């Protein structure tokens, strides 16, 4: 029953800001197997990992400015696992030659009271979906190939409908701010996946209408 160390360092101010570097693309259903085959060859040797997740996107409307967005995700295949709460900041503008989308990222593991707690904070659920697919890893890079499905009845994750006839492919790295070699490594990895899938930097703000 040793005493755990008492931390005297403040959390705010000295925290390392983590950034998410992201490249996205998609493949049609028919091309999935060849992509998975290629990924199995290129990525770290591990048991093939599939997942089924339910993600809810919450918005907090403030007095001014854009609403604050939080993403709450839970695993449907591991129901006892904690929820994963994620905040993604605005994409960093500036260096057009940077190959990946870079944005501030805060990940928090949370208990199962998360949806009620977010509602109490003033967040309201904007939309939800189910994602299932495969996850691969190569060093610090994470490659996720997922099929997104729309939830027809709110809260019912059994009854879903596929959003499209393709799979979303995402290559991402979580690294402290200032590491510029990350996007180079991602670009060279993305080259190896051509022509099966073209991974590119897609700016989410340009998608909104």
């Amino acid at each position, binding site marked *: 029953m040793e005493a755990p*160390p008492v931390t005297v360092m403040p959390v*705010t101010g000295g925290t390392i800001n983590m950034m998410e570097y992201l490249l996205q693309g998609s493949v049609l259903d028919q091309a999935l197997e060849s992509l998975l085959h290629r990924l199995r060859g290129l990525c770290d040797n591990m048991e093939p990992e599939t997942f089924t997740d339910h993600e809810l996107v919450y918005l907090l409307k403030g007095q001014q400015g854009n609403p*604050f967005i939080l993403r709450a995700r839970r695993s449907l295949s591991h129901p006892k696992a904690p929820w994963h709460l994620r905040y993604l900041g605005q994409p960093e503008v500036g260096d057009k030659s940077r190959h990946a989308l870079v944005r501030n990222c805060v990940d928090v593991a949370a208990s199962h009271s998360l949806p009620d707690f977010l509602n109490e904070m003033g967040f309201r659920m904007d939309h939800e979906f189910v994602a299932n697919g495969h996850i691969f890893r190569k060093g610090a890079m994470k490659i996720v190939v997922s099929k997104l499905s729309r939830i027809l009845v709110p809260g019912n994750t059994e009854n879903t409908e596929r959003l499209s006839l393709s799979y979303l492919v995402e290559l991402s790295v979580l690294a402290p701010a200032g590491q510029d070699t990350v996007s180079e490594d991602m670009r060279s990895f993305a080259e190896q996946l051509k022509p099966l899938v073209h991974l590119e930097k897609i700016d989410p703000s340009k998608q909104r209408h």
Partner: protein
Amino acid sequence: MGVTCVCQVPVAEGKSVQQTVDILHKKLEQLGAVKQGSFCVDCETYHATGNVSGQPSKLLYVMHNSETPLSCLALFEGGPCLIADANFDVLMVKLKSHFQNAKGHKVECRGSRYRYCDFLIKVGTVTMSSSARGISVEVEYCPCVVPGDCWNLMKEFMQSFLGPSVPELPSVFAAKPEGLFAPADSVDTMTQYLELFNKLRKLQLPGSNVR
């Protein structure tokens, strides 16, 4: 985590906060308790901004306990609570335009941690803006998770060093049906700390200073 009781100990007549804490330490050592490091429990308060005027703004409390250093507990008084990892504090910084940190309201409780057989005793000084507001004692009986089964034992143990200041069964347990176990997630302990902090926050300091 076993059944835990957090209570306030009044400052001894004619003595300072530090002197009363020293008296408690001495009593525990005489009983045979062994000092095992220190502990810290703190609580920060956030106000929700952007509320309709006229309505009192909701208060969000974010608490940390050195016993669970990688977690933090966020709760609304009387409302839902969330157990999250340490990154929740970083998220609150991002949310600062929606939730303002009332910096003057931060309450901290620091002190020594003692172990006596199956009991864990923590005697702490509660401070707010560097002034001591009171003394807290936390007693945990580790082997048992059902409050009803061990409350009498805990009360007897507390009497041996707290004398007449022994508390009643904490309201967090009294509210639960008989025989229900306290889950190992420290919510009940932190709720008791929050009640204690709020009580001490309301007390006016009668001009005596920290020693």
